């Protein structure tokens, strides 16, 4: 299965999204990473790197991020990661909550990384009303 890493500025938001997505797909490996190591709102490239490496055994890793600097920190983390892990990682350009749920379901069906990423990004077009 493809592993999911949820990156948010808020540790509790990251945990909550992981919880929500896990409810739909309990077997999908997921890591939630948010906030700084001293408990502020923000993102930490080093913590993101560790979260991705935790899921390096998966059949690909998809990272879902909330606001701008989460993306910058994730890209920074990838730049300093061993190439064999970096090659297995993709970033999803989609909404972090809906995208995580869609990606979790897709991954639980055994789909490859490209399909899981496509599902997360397609969530941007989901209509609620």
């Amino acid at each position: 299965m493809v592993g999911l890493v949820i990156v948010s500025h808020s540790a509790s938001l990251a945990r909550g999204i992981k919880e929500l997505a896990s409810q739909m797909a309990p077997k999908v490996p997921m890591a939630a990473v948010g906030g700084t190591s001293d408990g502020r709102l923000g993102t930490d490239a080093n913590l993101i790197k560790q979260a991705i490496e935790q899921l390096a055994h998966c059949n690909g890793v998809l990272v879902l991020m909330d606001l701008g600097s989460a993306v910058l920190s994730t890209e920074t983390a990838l730049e300093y990661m061993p190439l064999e892990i970096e090659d297995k990682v993709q970033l999803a350009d989609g909404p972090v909550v809906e995208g995580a749920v869609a990606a979790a379901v897709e991954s639980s069906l055994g789909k490859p990384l490209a399909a899981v990423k496509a599902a997360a990004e397609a969530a941007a077009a989901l209509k609620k009303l």
Partner: protein
Amino acid sequence: MGLTVSELTDMIQAVGKVIEDNKAFLTELDSAIGDADHGINMAKGFHAVKEKLPTLADADAGTVLKTVGMTLVSTVGGASGPLYGTAFLRAGMKIGNKEELLAVDLDLGLVAALEGIKQRGRAEPGDKTIVDALQPAVMALKESLNAGKTATEALGAAVTAAEDGVEYTKGIIARKGRASYLGERSLGHQDPGATSTYLMLRTMQEFLARRT
């Protein structure tokens, strides 16, 4: 200019002190158009740098700069972490294992820092970001060095260009970062990132001027 590694370390400490002294000012700028944390975040990052630098007494210049970069990416918290962190990392990679920095290294390092920031932030001049201060500064530095000025004089020209760049950000709408959510409401405010870049360059210039 012949800057030793120990002087480079002192220069970075001086930058950290200026960031700490301007913590409230930078945060106030960021509270107008962002998430009100730029000064706090930068001060956190440079505090961690301050603790780290004494462990690098025997390191070369590139290692010092790269370590500053790695420290910033994992301690700042906001976008300025990966942005300034990448800037120091790229400058360190470009400068490599030198024991003494010359004017040409200042130019190489700042060009690499600018390219790193533009790539990481996907920002161009006019987006109301660090780039609006750093790009004109790098160009002014290069022009002055080509005209035969000393490193201190060239950095002086860079500081003036960065200050003009900060002023310029007041008249444009943010297209990157948290301020871009505000659209036209970002007009009239100077960009906090451009401001911290100006402060850092000014501190470097003052440091060089003091020793010559």
